[in-house]
């Protein structure tokens, strides 16, 4: 029973989470300051921002685990403040640095949460086995979690969400502290979840990872969402342009021809035969056409996709963090 909302692009979207004016105050300090966002079904949504920017508080409010000071949020059509059990039945949560009972085995840990979820005995065993196999922990299912590495614990946490058959998976800093290979594996698992139609909310500092898996991102700062959209959209807003294309070509008046392409905002001449264009869209085909039309010899066309890292760095450079933030 998600509401239908028409986005700016005109396509109706099936929103699973929508927040309006959501805020959380601790006394006088403000952890989350009136934020609005909507997340569509099947989307991978990234929450970015420095520590203490309000990401985890937002997540906890969506789960009904912390009070909402003002505003409202609806998760799968339910109000987490009034109907937390219905929300928590359908949403899987992997907390930041998730912990397990070290003296219990992986299976026993999952069995405990499965019981809390209210799964029937017969279904429990089957689901636990399947979930552990999915995340590659089948061989250590009967080992104590105390012996597990950080990466294995994170995967076990994901197994819990898979076992729950959650419609929404909320992952708080799931890859922090993992080695590159474990991170790759984990991101692969997130993509698998997405392929199954699970909506994924991912909070992270690891910008390149977020960029690799997320459809849209929200940038938090001082309790507010300061930027929201797809990475190219953000690039246009922050960097002024989305694409930087480098052209290596020989021929007369190439710089002038390139500058005439619609959407190009700037052309720099780096060397006699090298030019850097800044554009709002991917102008490589037009650039190629322009060079060839002018009898030029095109040697190389390369595009720098805007990296989230650049956007992030530029944004925080432009607006120094002068405001006081209160870590919750």
């Amino acid at each position, binding site marked *: 029973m998600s509401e239908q909302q028409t986005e700016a692009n005109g396509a109706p979207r099936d929103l699973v989470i929508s927040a309006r004016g959501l805020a959380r105050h601790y006394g006088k300090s403000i952890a989350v300051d009136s934020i609005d966002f909507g997340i569509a079904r099947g989307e991978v949504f990234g929450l970015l921002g420095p520590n203490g920017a309000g990401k985890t508080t937002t997540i906890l409010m969506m789960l009904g*685990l*912390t009070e909402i000071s003002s505003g409202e949020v609806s998760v799968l059509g339910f109000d987490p403040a009034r109907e937390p059990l*219905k929300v928590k039945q359908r949403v*899987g949560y992997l907390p930041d640095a998730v912990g397990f009972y070290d003296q219990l085995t992986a299976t026993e840990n999952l069995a405990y949460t499965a*019981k809390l979820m209210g799964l029937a005995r017969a279904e429990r065993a089957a689901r636990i086995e399947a979930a552990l196999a999915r995340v590659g922990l089948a061989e250590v299912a009967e080992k104590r979690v105390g012996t597990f590495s950080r990466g294995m614990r994170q995967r076990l946490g994901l197994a819990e969400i898979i076992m729950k058959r959650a419609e929404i998976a909320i992952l708080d800093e799931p890859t922090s502290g993992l080695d590159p290979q474990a991170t790759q594996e984990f991101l692969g698992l997130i993509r698998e979840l997405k392929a199954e139609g699970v909506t994924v909310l991912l909070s992270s500092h690891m910008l390149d990872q977020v960029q690799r898996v997320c459809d849209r991102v929200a940038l938090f700062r001082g309790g507010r969402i300061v930027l929201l959209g797809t990475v190219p959209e953000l690039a246009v807003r922050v960097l002024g342009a989305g694409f930087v294309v480098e052209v290596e070509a020989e021929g007369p008046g190439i710089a002038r021809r390139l500058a005439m392409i619609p959407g190009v905002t700037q052309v720099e001449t780096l060397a006699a035969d090298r030019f850097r264009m800044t554009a709002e869209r991917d102008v490589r085909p037009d650039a190629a056409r322009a060079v060839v039309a002018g009898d030029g010899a095109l040697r190389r066309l390369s595009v720098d996709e805007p990296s989230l890292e650049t956007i992030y760095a530029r944004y925080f450079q432009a607006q120094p963090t002068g405001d006081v933030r209160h870590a919750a």
Partner: protein
Amino acid sequence: MRREGSPFRGLSTVFVKELSDHVSSIRMLVLELLIVSTALAALYEAISSLRQNTAEDPFLLLRLFTIDQAPLPSFVAILGFLIPLMAIGLGFDAVNSEHNRRTMSRILAQPIYRDALLMGKFLAALATIGISLTALWLLVIGLGLIFLGVPPGGEEIARSAVFLIVAIFYAGVWLSLAMLLSTVFRSAATAALVALGIWLFLTVLWPMLAPALAQAIAPADPRYALLGLNDPATAVWTQELLRLSPNDLFGEAMLAVLSPTTRALGPVFLDQLRGAVMGAPLPFGESIMIAWPQTVGLVAGTIILFAFSYVLFQRQEVRA
């Protein structure tokens, strides 16, 4: 604003998990060994002194609980001292360990309320203590049968069963206190130290401090002192102050229930005893009446302390 669903959903799951954790934990094993070995030593002394005068006493089984043979205190006194230790041992890290292991938010993200988690933990620890005390109680009765050779009467069993129930509530007070401290303090070590400090204060220091305080509040009338008597006002104050300690409540209730000749727990004037057959045992119901206020005090203490930790826990932030 009313929340949907039952606050007790998941209670039995938490209860079973915590109970199995407690029963299989090394901590519990150590506490059990401590209590059983001390209690057995006290019982051994009691039995060896009782074997001298078996025929004379109508409440032989109850004597096993209350007789003290220097240097060892009686079985009940030892339990009065050690039950708090056991309860603190089971409760001091109930809530903060979930935070420290970072399991709290994961568990609370499951479809249960916090009520179920706290209540399940409390009931599981209380059940663990209940099981150990019941085992100990059966041990006493069994040893009494074997070494004294006198089968206990119905009233003796009833009185000792009341002992068991009051002892469980006495453990409940300390358990609630320990869980309250585990909610207040994020560090388990701090919670344990504070709990043990309160325990030592109430069992060792308070019995010394209470009379001094009573003297300060109600100074003894010199006329009583001249007669070599205690001022009743000071005596009453002393007792009221002592009763602030659950140890004293437990001790008094046990005195009333396990020593059937106990007629009153407070100071008594001689004229109030006129017509009383001294040394004659009171009926079971009358003894219960004497122990009733103390028992209610222990139950109330358990509930109040639990309510405090409940409110604190509900308002606590999930994240560390």
